[in-house]
């Protein structure tokens, strides 16, 4: 029987962990080996601020540390656990948390572990990742010593800003302009001179098209810069590759955030139901669970949205279809009311990402329960509102708030300029941030950088060009193409 208490040994936790793993297996979860470390707050916050154990030092992580530590010291929120996806996985438990809290956290981590191991977006676990993280940290320390901490830190920050532009997957295809063609006009033969001139124009355009670089618009900005950038040092190329490798580690977690947290909450809820808790321990566990999984006013809590989506899947599997329209009923017809709810949840954990899960399982019921629309509890959400919310959420998770920006020319105007195009959907780039980012990009590239987007001017939307000539001078915004 688990009691509410604040003293325990590692062996006590070991016993609990064995129990939890057994129950997790019964639920259908297949968590990998996880090493649980019982560590002081300093260590938990140190790992949390660098996000990966053994990662290089950076002043920006210090800012995160100050933030989290201040919240912890004021008692405004604490981190219960940090988990690191490796082989074996490592989870860091905060010493001084109560026994019940540790039990819940262990069960929670088993959910994460299952997603790490079985969700296809994570791919095979990179066994060498921890070693490469340590080696990268050692190299960056050397660069700090050799080239100055400030300069290297700024370079790392710039890389991190553009690492986000590596595509989450390679499915999104870029538009490649077709080869220019000669289009014959009626009566062409009456005007041979005119025709010859047009032929010459097409030939020139073809020549340019053949020499275009890159041959296809490139979304992976850092990869392109590392390969073709002007005047990059070896250490700079190394930093770019380090940051890209980190992004490859973070990207699957970012694209399955809602699913991952949902499964972790689902795991701790179900496992705790199986464990024997005395009444105090039970109350404490309920309070903790509520704290983690409640909706946040005006903000999205992935724990809450995740568990609500999974609950919806369970409800549909049980055949509860009230409030769903024809289209939705049809979509779920193949398995609604006929599938084991838990098996369906595990199936989703092992095959979906956030976008596909939201597209398929976000219903008006979830929208109400997760308070995605700011309405008093119990008030119905209209179908129109629901569709707007769903589309906005899906759109956000498609790009995670990163606008699609592609490199369209690596030798712009024959002067080596980097030309980019913002593939907008009606909303342009933020002017201040675009100018700041472009100056950083110009610094990475080593020559001027130009991005084309749109902006509002006098009530109309017009094409706009942001231009950074040098990293140290302010970037310009122009409403006409630079020539």
């Amino acid at each position: 029987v688990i009691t509410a208490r604040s003293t325990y040994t590692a062996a006590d936790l070991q016993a609990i962990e064995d129990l939890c793993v057994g129950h997790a297996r019964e639920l259908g979860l297949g968590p990998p080996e996880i090493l649980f470390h019982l560590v002081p707050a300093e260590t938990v916050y140190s790992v949390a601020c660098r996000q990966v154990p053994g990662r290089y030092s950076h002043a920006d992580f210090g800012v995160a540390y100050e933030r989290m530590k201040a919240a912890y010291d004021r008692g405004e929120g604490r981190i219960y656990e940090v988990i690191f996806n490796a082989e074996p996985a490592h989870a860091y438990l905060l010493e001084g948390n109560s026994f019940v809290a540790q039990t819940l956290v262990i069960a929670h981590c088993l959910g994460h572990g299952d997603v790490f191991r079985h969700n296809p977006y994570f791919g095979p676990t990179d066994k060498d990742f921890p070693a490469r993280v340590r080696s990268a940290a050692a190299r960056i320390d050397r660069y700090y010593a050799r080239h100055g901490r400030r300069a290297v830190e700024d370079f790392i920050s710039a890389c991190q800003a553009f690492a986000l532009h590596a595509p989450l997957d390679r499915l999104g295809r870029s538009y490649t302009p077709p080869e220019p063609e000669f289009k014959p006009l009626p009566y062409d033969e009456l005007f041979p001179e005119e025709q010859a001139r047009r032929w010459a124009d097409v030939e020139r355009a073809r020549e340019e098209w053949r020499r275009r670089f890159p041959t296809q618009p490139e979304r992976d900005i850092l990869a392109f810069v590392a390969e073709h950038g002007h005047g990059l040092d070896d250490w700079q190329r190394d930093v770019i590759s380090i940051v890209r490798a980190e992004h490859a580690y973070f990207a699957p977690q970012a694209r399955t955030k809602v699913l991952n947290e949902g499964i972790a909450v689902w795991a701790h809820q179900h496992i705790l139901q199986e464990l024997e808790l005395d009444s105090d321990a039970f109350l404490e566990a309920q309070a903790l669970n509520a704290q983690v999984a409640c909706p946040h006013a005006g903000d999205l809590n992935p724990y809450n949205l995740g568990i609500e989506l999974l609950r919806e899947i369970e409800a549909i599997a049980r055949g509860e279809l009230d409030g769903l329209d024809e289209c939705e009923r049809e979509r779920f017809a193949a398995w609604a009311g006929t599938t084991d709810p838990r098996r369906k949840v595990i199936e989703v954990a092992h095959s979906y990402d956030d976008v596909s899960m939201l597209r398929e399982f976000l219903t008006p019921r979830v929208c109400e329960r997760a308070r995605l629309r700011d309405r008093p509890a119990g008030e119905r959400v209209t179908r129109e509102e629901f569709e707007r919310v769903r589309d906005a959420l899906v759109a956000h998770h498609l790009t995670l708030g990163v606008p699609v920006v592609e490199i369209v020319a690596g030798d712009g105007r024959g002067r080596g300029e980097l030309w980019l195009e913002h593939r907008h959907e009606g909303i342009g780039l933020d002017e201040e941030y675009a100018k700041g980012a472009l100056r950083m990009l110009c610094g990475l590239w080593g020559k001027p950088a130009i991005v084309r987007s749109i902006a509002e001017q006098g009530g109309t939307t017009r094409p706009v060009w942001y231009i950074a000539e040098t990293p140290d001078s302010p970037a310009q915004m122009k409403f006409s193409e630079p020539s």
Partner: protein
Amino acid sequence: MPVAQGSGLPEDSGRRDAQHNRARVRRQIQDALRERIGEEDIIAAGPDKRIRVPIRSDRRYRFILDRGRTAGRDGGTGPQPGTDPGEEVYEVWLDMEEVEETLFASLDLPRLKPKREVAADAEDVVFDDIEKQGPLLDKKATLRENLLRAARAGEDEVDWTRDDLRYLTWDEEPRPRTQAVAFLMMDVSGSMSGDHKRIARLFFYWTVQFLRRRYTHVDVRFIAHTTEAREVTEQEFFNRVESGGTLVSSAYECARAIQRQEYPASDWNVYVLHASDGENFYPDNERVVDLVAALMDVCSLVGYLQIAVRPPGRFAAGSGGKLAEHLEQRPVDGVVVAEVSGDRDIWPALQRFFAKEDVEEAVIRA
């Protein structure tokens, strides 16, 4: 699957990152502390208190969608995390030790001279070693390091990096020690209003903190005066309330008497600091100026802080006829006069009295 105590990871990596960041935002921290030096609750809370300093971090630029348009879209439909980069303000918590280190780094006791040997075990520092870290930048060694690095890289010139910096650092040697005494004198007469007294106390509080933190061998003596002056304990000095007329000369005489008896100028650096509203019994002013001039024979600094608080809704009376004017009419080298009218002037006043002398000059003299 094991549960283990500990992780083998360094515990302090987060704190070290935070220190690097604090070094980056040192300026902001300094400015914020200097602003807040007049807040009484900093003092009231005692040495365990931690001070929160809000810091605005650099914008983390990247490509994002137009904030003006995404914010209002759909009239607040659903949360859209990640689209709003947010105002990036966070708090840095400093304990009093860090607060004082940061504040006092740019202050110094002026004209501090080594005095006659008093104790055999006294040590002094000699700046004769060069290290990567230390209190004093050595420009020559730094330049040498940069040139060496350029030569190694086979280039004519390389950019300056932090790693080039070389500092002078010290060895400790038995030497005649610098010892100092500070006379802190406060006007507690009836014309000092509550605000006057508060500012005077704050000023002296920071003065005492500065002296004690920075100098091991410093005596601090406290003198309170109305029409007559007497030496008081530190406790009394900061808490006593009195009333009555003002005769400033009494305080200077009192300081002079104690100095003559206990602190011969041949052995001690003598500092005199006085705070008052300047409303002295008029005929006494000339006498004060004479006394100050006489004191300068034995003092390294006589500082006079005139507090001119403006009562709300009234025009300032102006400093006409007040003590500061008399002192400024007959300037004496080493006499520093500062005026404060509110909390925000406390830091500039401290800076005026304890201006750091040119570092290199100090090294040469040592």
